[in-house]
């Protein structure tokens, strides 16, 4: 029966002949095959292999000194492992995040739900179909792993095998969660954003509570937060790569992070599968969006109550767009769920509280941290926030219009290319600016602690504003080259993250194997280096980063803005 369905789903005779026909269900087969029919399959297969090979090559020892202890090999293996971990985290949500929502939009999900396949079978098929291409791409990195192995110092059972087991589990875990998110999605761009947000929470966010509760009196709190942090692959990864427990602050434990991660990721995967399976029901289409009752249509008492409760009432009818307001800017704000004033205010408030909390925790929790260290921590957190938000918000500015065909309508209006580009860019730059402003209270605390730092802090804030502008404009320019929102978002994330991470990697290898000039160049193109250098971060001294980094960021931003405008101008012209 399942083979007959597979034939209808596009398998046909090919399915009959396929090697996996006995073990894969039709959905898994179709997902797997269709992924390899697209150009992204090449990137998916070759990308991780190229990145990891480069990482190993860049760290390969150049001096002819033998090192029996294998420290150097472990260092190279460390770069390889972390690099592969980052690549897996970035790639794992890509396919599953759009898998269900795309079918829903195209209308094929309805056909699928009317097939005799069980919800669990569909969920499993989607998961296997999403995971298989990534597992194949992981096998492409084996030559780089073999190169590490050949250096000596690392072993197959203690290093390479656990690393690959962890990466496989991570792939399955993130794919399962992304599928669950995709089953709730209604538009591709918001689902991709949510999937990447979910990935960051699972990988980084879950580490947070343990930072607060470790060593606390209540053992239940410690136990729960300790298990919670093992949902993230980072503690297990650091364990395999022979580094200290992340955030452990010197507190030694005798538990195996790797084993705990195997259990936690298994539970996480299972939860994702159950959620996805529970959504694989025809009622998924029976969720008309309730428009609610408009405030103006409510009683006077209710209106007064809402006036008091809401700073910005989401149910109040919007006023007409002003004569001097850019309509594209307003459209962008209004058509984003989180672009509404009520949501922007919430985002700004959360950022402000987070910034104050980080500063407070850093200042009170660790007595020997200097103000500069706190500042560096703040900068890194802010940059992480920018890197998370900027590509997600700006990469799809044009791709979404093209993919949803709403560009045809916008193109029919007499709005100029400049007006469209300006409105779109401002719609992203403005909330980013507000979020950045909201993190400033942390710097105010710093100035309060060390008033002499005022000038320095102002320059740091200036650098961060430039970095934000750079991130937004570069993401927008990259995204404008694509017609599909997923490709635009993923590519923007990959470029910005790589630009930041690879240059930091080069900086970490300063002295050996990288020379002074190369490290300086790498820091000049890093969006956050000037802010860190101004904050006198350890290891940044001696390099002439300023003002060249500012020149680079502003010139690239300008070119990216021009590119974006030219893309819109070209798209407005007759075909």
């Amino acid at each position, binding site marked *: 029966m399942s083979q007959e369905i597979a034939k209808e789903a596009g398998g046909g005779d090919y399915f009959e002949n396929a090697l996996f026909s006995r073990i894969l269900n039709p959905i898994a087969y179709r997902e797997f095959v269709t992924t390899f029919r697209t150009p992204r399959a090449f990137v998916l297969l070759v990308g991780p292999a190229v990145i990891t090979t480069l990482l190993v090559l860049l760290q390969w020892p150049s001096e002819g000194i033998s090192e029996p202890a294998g420290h150097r090999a472990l260092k190279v293996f460390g770069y390889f492992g972390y690099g592969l971990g980052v690549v897996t985290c970035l790639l794992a949500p890509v396919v599953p995040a759009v898998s269900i929502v795309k079918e829903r939009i195209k209308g094929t999900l309805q056909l699928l739900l009317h097939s005799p396949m069980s919800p669990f079978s569909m969920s499993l098929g989607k998961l296997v179909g999403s995971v298989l291409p990534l597992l194949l791409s992981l096998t492409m990195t084996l030559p780089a792993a073999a190169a590490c192995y050949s250096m000596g110092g690392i072993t197959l059972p203690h290093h390479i095998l656990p690393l690959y087991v962890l990466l496989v589990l991570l792939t399955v875990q993130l794919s399962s969660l992304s599928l669950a998110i995709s089953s709730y999605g209604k538009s591709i761009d918001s689902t991709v954003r949510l999937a990447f947000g979910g990935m960051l929470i699972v990988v980084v966010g879950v580490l947070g509570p343990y930072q607060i509760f470790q060593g606390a009196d209540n053992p239940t709190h410690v136990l729960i937060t300790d298990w919670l942090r093992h949902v993230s692959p980072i503690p297990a990864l650091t364990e395999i790569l022979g580094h200290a427990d992340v955030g452990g602050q010197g507190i030694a434990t005798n538990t195996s992070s790797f084993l705990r991660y195997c259990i936690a990721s298994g539970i996480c995967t299972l939860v994702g599968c159950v959620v996805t399976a529970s959504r694989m029901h025809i009622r998924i289409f029976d969720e008309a969006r309730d428009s609610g009752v408009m405030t103006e249509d409510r009683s006077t008492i209710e209106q007064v109550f809402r006036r008091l409760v809401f700073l910005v009432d989401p149910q109040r009818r*919007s006023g*007409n*767009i002003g*004569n001097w307001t850019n*309509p594209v800017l307003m*459209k962008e704000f209004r058509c984003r769920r989180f672009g*509404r004033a009520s949501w922007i205010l919430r985002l700004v408030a959360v950022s402000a509280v987070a910034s104050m909390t980080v500063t407070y925790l850093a200042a009170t929790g660790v007595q020997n941290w200097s103000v500069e260290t706190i500042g560096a921590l703040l900068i890194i957190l802010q940059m992480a926030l920018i890197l998370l938000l900027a590509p997600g918000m700006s990469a799809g500015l044009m791709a979404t219009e093209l993919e949803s*065909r709403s*560009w045809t309508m916008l193109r029919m209006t007499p709005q100029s290319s400049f007006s469209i580009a300006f409105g779109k860019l401002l719609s992203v730059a403005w909330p980013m600016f507000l979020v950045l402003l909201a993190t400033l209270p942390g710097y105010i605390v710093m100035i309060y602690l060390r008033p002499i730092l005022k000038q320095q802090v102002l320059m740091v804030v200036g650098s961060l504003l430039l970095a934000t502008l750079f991130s937004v404009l570069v993401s927008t320019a990259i995204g404008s080259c694509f017609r599909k929102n997923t490709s635009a978002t993923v590519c923007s994330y990959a470029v910005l993250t790589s630009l930041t991470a690879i240059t930091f990697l080069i900086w970490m290898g300063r002295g050996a194997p990288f020379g002074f000039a190369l490290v300086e160049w790498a820091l000049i193109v890093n969006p956050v280096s000037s802010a860190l250098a101004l904050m006198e971060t350890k290891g940044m001294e001696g390099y002439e980063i300023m003002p060249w980094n500012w020149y680079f960021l502003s010139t690239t931003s300008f070119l990216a803005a021009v590119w974006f405008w030219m893309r819109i101008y070209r798209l407005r012209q007759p*075909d």
Partner: protein
Amino acid sequence: MSEEPLVVIDHVRKQYGTFVALEDLSLTVNRGRILGFIGPNGAGKTTTIKILVGHARPTSGTATVKGVNCTTQSDQIKRLVGYMPDEFGSYDNMRVSEYLDFFGAAFSIPRKQRRTRIDEVMEITGVTRMKDLFVESLSHGMKQRVGIARTLLHDPELIILDEPANGLDPRARIEMRQLLLDLAELGKTLIVTSHILPELARICDEVAIVSKGRLRAYGTVESILREVGQRRTWELLLTENSRIPDLGKLLQRALEEDASVELSSTEMTIRFQTTADDEQVQQLLKRVVSEEFPVVQMREVQLDLEDTFMSVTQDDASGAAT
């Protein structure tokens, strides 16, 4: 009704690589008329529309609306033309009133005027009661109405609707038909494409049939029917289907060389088109009866727009089949 031409398409040719989408298309639509623009899939309808709204550049020839060149003066064209494509995206999280407000602002309609205009177009298209609903939550028919409301916002002289009745239920289709007639009453010129030909026949003043990028027929529905009607269509009903092929061969031999004969074994009918007059048809019938073909009925088929369409595009269809 005015005889002033509003839309003039003059010897337009559009080529994509080696594929010719439009070949020497010439067409004029007078002000206040409703033109039904029909053709099989891939005939060049959407390409023609894209040229008219300034989204495609003709390889040669010119297209103008009210004397404004559609290619070189595309900004002016946008103010003259209201266009609703067959598939148009709606923005998520926007209520109907906000959606219309955005497009009104994009057309630089001053704020106060815009408020009144939005109310007017919502009234015309019957979407007033939906103004607070999210666009994405509307049914297909409602979205089509909102789409038409949007095209009317800037009060264009020419409205181009690509498949406006596509996917609508019968009631919505009747309402859509009435809406188009109301727009014509307001003095708008409409170009409407549709696959539902009886609908078009009811509302259009003129019909243009394109096939394989060429204009095959153009004029009022009556004139096209007359033109195509120079060939009369006859239908023979038989009591059994075993001798249908033999009768088909007989008709092919007896009729002129380019006469078309269609056999339907399942319906036990033979339909043929011929220029033969009454006397010649009478002779033919006599011969059929004398050869003892089991014919129980012979009648002349009155053509409608669908038959005309099939007749006009028949050569292309058979060409494509071969």
